[in-house]
Each structure stands twice: as C-alpha cells, then as structure tokens.
C-alpha cells in the first residue's frame, strides 16, 4: 500500500509564511475573497464600460457645446431647456405612453403562451422552449424591417388584401404612426416577455394547485387565487424587461413611426447624430432615465399593494 498522497515530513514542518503564501492561504480560507477575485474582471469591465460612461454622461449634461468645443462650466441650462418648450415633455410623455401600451400588450399576449408551455406541455417541452426563445436571439433590426415591408402602403398586407379583392384602396393607417410602432415593438419584444413569466409559472409547486382543488376551487378560481399571485414575480420582471428598453427605442420609431410616431429616442439620436447639441441630448437621456426609474418605482409600489390585497 503506497502512501503517495501524503507530502514528505519536512515539507509539513515548515508552514510557508511569505506574503504570497499568506494571500493564498487567505484565499483558501475565505470564500468571499475567492469569489470576488473571480468576479473582478467582469466587475471591472462593467464599471469601466457601463457605470463610468453613465456617470460621465450625467456630468456631460451639465456642460455646453459650442460647435466643436465643449465648454465645461457647470450649467443647468440643458436640463431646463427640456421644460422650455412643451414639445419635449410631451414627447417624453408620448414615449412613456407608447411603451406602457407595448408592455401591457406584450405581457397580456405572452402570459397565456407561457402558461401553455408551463402547464399543458409535457412531452416536447424542449422543442416549445426552443421555438419561443430562438426569435429572441436574432436580429432586432431585421424584425423591425420585416414589419416595415409588411405594413407599407404598397406592402405585403395591402397588396395581399388587394389581390384577394378584399379592399380596393390600400390602407394608409397601417404604417408611419404610433399604431405601427406599438405593433412592431410588441412583436419584437414578445419572446423577451415570455421567458420570465414561464420561469415563474414553472416554479409553482404543483401540489399547491392540487390542494386548492381539494379545498373546492374550480379551475378559474384556482388560477386567480393561486397561480396568478404566485406568478407575479415573473410578470413584474417581464413588465420591466419590456418597458425600460422600449421607452428609449430609436430603431422602430425611425423605421415605422413616420412623423406622428416619433419618440424621445429619435430626438436624442438627432442631437448626437449631426453633433448639434450633445450636452442637451445627454440631458434628455438623463431625464428619460429618471422618468423610467420613477415609473418603475410607482409600478413596484402599485403591485405591492395589489399583492397585499390578494393575499
């Protein structure tokens, strides 16, 4: 029986004491330290590429741009400019409204789908899950573009309906308005909303549902009293995941929004695009982010009291 696992006695006699050895022992002992060491590259990246730029953006919004030069004296002018003309607050409000509509629509449409996969599908769950997640990974730009050609005046829907003889004149209301924006965004974000809801529903302990049935609930009551409340975390996550990015969306309003479907993202982009007034663009972005945060807080506060009432 060879004893190859034990190190030689003289090695053990001297417990290494140098600083590196001490650090390594500390690493062995402290899980927290090891964990954070492993996380450090990611954290560093995100601090440099996400946190720092946003902080600088905030600073930038307090400066002024004179053609190519940036005047770094602190000024509130950019932020105040937001309130000067009613156009800006109106545009922000409209963007929030569009996003809220999109969120509501997307989540309402996604919920039954997520429910179907979580509760009704037993044999081929893998296939269903893949089918709903794959679109989510593919090009957002192309999906918006697809709607542009579908909704156009001479586009797919109109030409198809004319071919079928259902209409004579093309429908003008399909494209270049808020309706097109809402429809396109709802389609684009559909997969994004399903996943969190699905995860929440899947987690529900099935024996809870059986208990509810045993205690007298019919299917609908059981859904309202047990399933729905327990899926709230997923619902809330889905709402946030759809609402937050869509408020600032630029691509969709640009391609299918026309003049009436303009959102705040378009304005921000134009201020940066031509390089005409970047600090103001920054200020608009900050104000938009603050608005989003406030809306989210209100939303979370609202759902909290709803959950208390249901419980």
């Amino acid at each position: 029986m060879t004893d190859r696992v034990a190190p030689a006695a003289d090695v053990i006699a001297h417990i290494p004491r140098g600083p590196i050895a001490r650090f390594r022992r500390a690493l062995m002992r402290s899980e927290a330290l090891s964990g954070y060491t492993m996380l450090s590259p990611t954290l560093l990246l995100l601090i440099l590429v996400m946190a720092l730029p946003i902080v600088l953006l905030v600073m930038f919004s307090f400066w002024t741009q004179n053609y190519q030069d940036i005047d770094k004296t602190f000024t509130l002018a950019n932020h105040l400019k937001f309130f000067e003309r009613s156009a800006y607050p109106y545009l922000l409000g409209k963007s929030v409204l569009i996003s809220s509509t999109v969120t509501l629509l997307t989540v309402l449409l996604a919920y039954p789908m997520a429910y179907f996969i979580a509760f009704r599908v037993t044999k081929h769950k893998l296939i269903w899950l893949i089918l709903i997640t794959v679109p989510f990974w593919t090009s957002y730009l192309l999906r918006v573009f697809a709607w542009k050609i579908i909704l156009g005046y001479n586009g797919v829907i109109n030409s198809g309906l004319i071919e079928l003889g259902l209409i004579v004149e093309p429908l003008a209301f399909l494209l270049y308005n808020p309706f097109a924006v809402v429809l396109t965004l709802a389609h684009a974000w559909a997969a994004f909303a399903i996943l969190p809801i699905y995860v929440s529903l899947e987690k529900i302990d099935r024996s809870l549902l059986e208990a509810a049935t045993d205690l007298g609930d019919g299917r609908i009551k059981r859904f309202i009293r047990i399933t729905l409340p327990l899926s709230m975390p997923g619902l809330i996550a889905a709402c946030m995941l759809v609402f937050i990015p869509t408020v600032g969306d630029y691509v969709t309003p640009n391609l299918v929004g026309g003049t009436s479907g303009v959102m705040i993202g378009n304005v921000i982009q134009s201020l940066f695009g031509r390089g005409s007034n970047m600090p103001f663009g920054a200020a608009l972005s900050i104000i938009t982010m603050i608005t989003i945060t406030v809306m989210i807080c209100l939303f979370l506060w609202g759902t909290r009291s709803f959950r208390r009432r249901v419980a």
Partner: protein
Amino acid sequence: MSFVSSVKEPRYDALGVYAVLYLAFVYIPVMFLPLFSFNDSIFIAFPLQGFTLEWYKQMANSDGLLDALYNSIKLGCVVAVLATILGTFAAKAVTRYKMPGRGPVITFIMLPLVIPGIIMGIALLVIANMSGVGLSLFTIGLGHLMVSTPFAMLVMVSRLEGFDKNLEEASKDLGDSPWSTFRRVTFPLALPGIIASLLLTFTISFDEFILAFFLAGNEATLPVYIWGQMRFPTKLPTVLALGACILMVSFVVVTFAEWYRRRGVQLKTNSGV
C-alpha cells in the same frame, strides 16, 4: 418536474389554439423576408412574380457587404470568446461561493440588459469623445462585450446550478489539483454551456445594431451596413436577401445552441434561461 395531474386539464383546447396562433404571430412576419427575397420584382408586394436568385447574386457582388460581413464575424468571434470567459468565471463565483452582497452584484451585472441601448450608445460616445479614443471596431467590441457578458453569465449559471456542488469537492478529495479538477470535472460538465454561450454571444454581437451604429468608425458591421442600404428603395430586395441569409444562419446557430445545452440537464433547473 412533470406535472402529474389529478385534476383534469384538457390537453388541446382554446389555449392550444392560442399557442399555435401565437407562434404564427412570432414567426410569420419574419418569414416574409426570405419569401420576397426570391421574388422576381423590385416591389415587395403581392402578387408574387416568380422565382429568382438575382437578388442573391447582387448581394454577393456588393462591395461594402463583404467587408461588413467580415468585420461582423471577426468582432463576433472575439466578443463571444471574451464574454464567455468572463461570464463563466462570474457564474462560478456566483453559484459556488458564499459572498456577501451577492444579490446586488448580480443585479449590477444584469444592468446592461435593461439600460436602453440608445442611452448606452451615447454614453459611450461621450466617453470616447472626451478621452480622445477614436471610434472603431474596438469601441463597438467593448460595447458588445458589455451587453453579452450578462447573457453568458446567465447561460453558465443555468448550467452550473444543474450540477451537484459536491462533484468538484469529490475530485479534490480524490487527489486532483485545482487545475486537474477543472480539466477533468468542471470543464467537461460545463462544456455544453460554454458552447451554447459562445454561439449565443456571437449571435448577439453579430445582430446588434444600436451600439454599433453609435460607435462605428470607418469599419461598418453588417447591421450598420444594412441600415445604410435601407434608404435606397432599389436596394431593398438585396437587403431582403441579406436579411434572409442572416436570419437563417442565426436560426440554425441558436437552435443548435439551445438544444445542445438543454438536453440532459433536467428541465427542473429553475432559471429557465
């Protein structure tokens, strides 16, 4: 967890019909791109005019396109590898180690997913401006790395949570050095997740538009190229051809990635991602 129902739930009813309609709603609009890319007409409208490969030929001959394609592939590969490495280490830290402040850290890492793309784009533009760093594929790459790493982490967390935490301890107990443990146990078990993460992060970078739009210098990525082409009505069918190709490739790659990583791991894994 399979749902053994003592309660009668109809398998295919209104809800089943809804599910099929929903899938149709998600897939059909996108199907028009390939459909009309073979259509022998410069107008994207019904009725269909006949089959042609003309647009594909034109696409293959476009100047800027091949350059943009090459840029996107190059960038995608680099981003995929880096994001997966970062995401894997982050996932390991988060699932296997007790750390104070774990929750807030995870939330912080997930933030890029929710910050509107345009705001991130301009913020990075501002910092590039101020620091004098010129815009190029490198700047786009940093942006892409930022948005893909959270996804890589999610995929790897999902993979790591499905496996017994004791396996790595068992390997150490049986004499493996940390490197041996990684090589013989951790890596083989994590491999499906790693492959999936590589494919998914590649796809994210390949398809990403808004950051690329803001941070591009002289070299365009494919989505930026497409955006430029969209202004020209005559170029539209070519764009369709290109779009169809991209969609097909993305679809195949992502389907493979999702299938590969989900098989074997119990669907019990609660992250669901």
